């Protein structure tokens, strides 16, 4: 480290430098000077759309080491012109909140707590229950003998914050299975 002279006194340094009011470079530490935005150190960025309301603001999702590190407004979007509201601006936390669930949880009937369950096992149990409920509440026809070809044993709700392609598969499969109680936030 070079020897300090009286010229390195902070107030003199400030007055001599390009920042005499002391609100910029004169008051930065080495750490601050070396800090770079996460958007610069990211491995990559992809174009996305905000998952909250239906305005459809453009987002740019920056990621590093397989994790989302920052989400910013996309200035190219003719709808949002780079802006995001507090929710859109907080959506990096949507991915990374400490409360994010990443494992399957299972609660048997009458239990008082969650248990762990393998995803594969859970999927198989759900498939079995789907088939059983479908049959248990199957209706071939109404009281006048007219075809119904449906089940009342299965219901579903949701889909306004998921994707078009996902809704399409939900509607396609559930309808083919005869489940009609397929509903969405759009009804609410």
């Amino acid at each position: 480290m070079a020897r300090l002279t009286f010229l390195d006194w902070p107030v003199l340094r400030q007055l001599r430098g390009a920042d005499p009011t002391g609100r910029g470079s004169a008051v930065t530490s080495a750490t601050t000077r070396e800090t770079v935005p996460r958007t610069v150190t990211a491995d990559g960025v992809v174009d996305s759309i905000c998952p909250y309301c239906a305005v459809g603001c453009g987002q740019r999702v920056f990621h590093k080491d397989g994790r989302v590190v920052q989400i910013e407004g996309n200035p190219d979007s003719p709808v949002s012109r780079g802006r995001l509201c507090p929710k859109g601006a907080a959506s990096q936390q949507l991915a990374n909140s400490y409360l994010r669930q990443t494992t399957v949880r299972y609660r048997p009937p009458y239990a008082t707590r969650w248990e762990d369950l393998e995803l594969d096992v859970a999927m198989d149990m759900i498939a079995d229950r789907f088939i059983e409920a479908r049959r248990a509440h199957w209706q071939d026809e109404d009281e006048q003998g007219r075809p119904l070809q449906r089940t009342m044993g299965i219901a579903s709700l949701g889909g306004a914050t998921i994707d078009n392609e996902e809704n399409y598969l939900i509607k396609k499969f559930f309808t083919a299975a005869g489940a009609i109680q397929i509903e969405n936030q759009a009804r609410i």
Partner: protein
Amino acid sequence: MQDFANADLIVIEGSNMAEAHPVAFQWVIEAKKRGARVIHVDPRFTRTSANADRHIPIRAGTDIVLLGGVIRHVLDNELFFKEYVQAYTNASTIISEQYADAEDLDGLFSGYDQETSTYDNSRWAYAGDPDDIARGLPERDETLQHPRSVFQILKRHYARYTPQMVQDTCGISPEDFAYLATAIAENSGRERTTSFAYALGWTQHQGGAQMIRTAGVLQLLMGNMGRPGGGVMALRGHATIQGSTDIPTLYHILPGYLPMPKVGQDDFAEFTRAIGKKEQKGFWANADIYAINLLKAWWGENATAENDWGYHHLPKLTGAHGTYQTTMRMLEGGVDGYFLFGQNPAVGSANGRLQRLAMSKLKWMVVRDFYMIESATWWRDGPEIESGELTSEEIATEMFYLPAANHTEKAGSFTQTQRMVQWRDQAVEPPGDARSDLEFMYELGRRIREKLQDSTDPRDRPILDLTWDYPLGEHGEPEAEAVLAEINGRHLSGERAGQPLSSFGEMRADGSTDGGCWIYAGVFADGVNQARRRTPGQEQDETAADWGWAWPANRRILYNRASADPQGRPWSERKKLVWWDEEAGSWTGHDVPDFPLTKRPDDPGDPSQGGAAALAGTDAFTMQSDGRGWLFTPTGLVDGPLPTHYESPESNIPNPLYSQQSNPTRVTFRDENNLSSPGASGRGGEVYPYIFTTYRITEHHTAGGMSRFLPYLSELQPEMYCEVSPELAEEVGLEPYGWATIISARSAIEAKVLVTERMKPLQVGERTVHQIGLPFHWGRGTEAIVQGDGANDLIGMNLDANTQIQNSKNNSCTLIPGRRPRGPERNELVEAYRRRAGLIDAEHPAVDGAAGAPGAGPADSETPHHVRGPEEASAAPTGEASMKEMRNR
């Protein structure tokens, strides 16, 4: 969105756009910068009001009177856009002699059946030869003078909607009314346009569909449809709530707004004719083609002409099977399994208590979410556990919680509120067990098909015959683009076999094409994912046609033929959008023209052909069976062909127009936990003297599943609160920042008190009306960062008959200082007020939710309840009764 900037006047009503859609609101501000005026009509003064030229406070639920008053004003003073109205609307159409108006029958239209609380809408039909009507050529009187013309009916219908009536009903001064009416009149016509924006402040009413219709009628009269800076903009609240209506997870429709078949519709040809007849005008004449292409996409080679393309694989409806009907069925033990895809009904649906009790009757439940939402944990920490009504050890419901991938962890498309489909690229892999709903659904289907593969049961045929083979990515997830390509459709045979369709016009009825959602045909044109186009806005004109893709046909403004005059010239240079180019012999302009491209403005149309060919050169409303914008709706709505005012069932104010107090078709459910205040229609209404209305705030999202688990957003808005006026605070004895308990006929919740002059008591006749604002984002559990009582617990499952959507925006309550009691005492408090109001089944059978209530459905639930489905909005009106067998439950 950007088109707001082209408006000269923006009326925001039933929406707090600045708060709920802040980024879209920049276009309102842009319009202001260009000289536009902004008027905000809302019970509360909000951030939107603060940015408006004027805020007009209104009593919740009276919008039809206000806008009906404006309709009267423009009709009486001849301020409507006459040339537009004559050419493009059904104003000149003559209505059947069987029609009687609500003004003639004291609040009922002709065709009402007291027994079932429903209408026979054949009494609202067009007059004329049935064959001509089917071809979209009903009797007309171009002078608009015929007493049974729509125009004259409209005039009579709104004759009593005077400024005085507006004041006595809405609590709006004649001066405020004149300001609004004059502004709309001055900012409409050839040179200027007015735009309306609304949100759930209109939708969530019994009668909400008719509120929106009133704006539609007014905008048609003023010539503001299909033009730049015009229209009625629905500001929707979820990333793909538009997409999930287009490609629906809704009980009553199939993709592309094709209705689900109903019991008795066993003939495929009759099914498609009920949607659109071959001889009618416009694009619904091809309903059969759209249906065949959907069935072909679903059942592939197994869909043939011989088996009606697999039509008989589709289940049949017997009534409304909406989410609230399903709640009731769950309570009765009639549903075993329930899937939630990013949805939190324990907090977000009306009557949260009934929602949670219903879930406790299920055998199993699958919750797919990012966080441990209240709908996943009600069995251990819900309000009913606290009150002791439920105990975990006695709840049989088996719970599966499956973590979901978020929007950065999967590729796919959202359709935003203006029908624009936008693709998202995948940034990262989902963590741990988290999977996309696409993969979950594909995998569940794959396993079920595998388990059933040897089945000989004919009931399993529809599952086994389904096309369910999608290319998989490296982690085994189906490729979302392949699903989008199926939605788009493709040529199956001929030279172009395997190629994607470029428009729905390429769809064929012979099985040589398929397509999962006809209105999305073109989103994958040329094999390119058009939704992924991202030419920067700054490199494009205002329409920005090269960003994303809007259905249909990448068109940004629907019915834009109406932006030109009948001769095909722009109404004015200032409002130029689409016009007829005589030299080129085609329509052209700044948007994709919403009209057959080479059809001349003076083309008379060919009625012998039907469909697009039958459209005359001035039939701008290309989806309607007569090519006209409908001021009067002979079909499509179950509660009347014209919007008319009713009070909400809990309103303490007698309907100033009719002795018919509330909407006669309203839907409710019989349950002791779903009772309503009798309001003005019986003693006891005064026990619940105040109106409460629910709303959103910027920092939270719906039921909080995507916001109350995020530290930033939770810190910004940590607590449930209620907004009350200083006058009401004084009347009740509330302290600012203290607690209040809000009690409705359903529940009691507590909230922090925000005393603010933004809430203004209104003078309505002799009465002072107090309104309370309640944000609805909080719920009770232990997992979220912030929690609070849920406003939706206060709301009854009382539905609009057209939409089956609950009435959230206009309910009655009382208010006491302090926190609510804990444990079982909470229900005792609710019960005490019910008793005071006489809300006991035996004493008050006519109260909504009690046994004798209108709309509760017939006593025998197996008796069909006749309701005409709203999905046939464009069906050709005929003299035949067009009833479908429906029932509320």
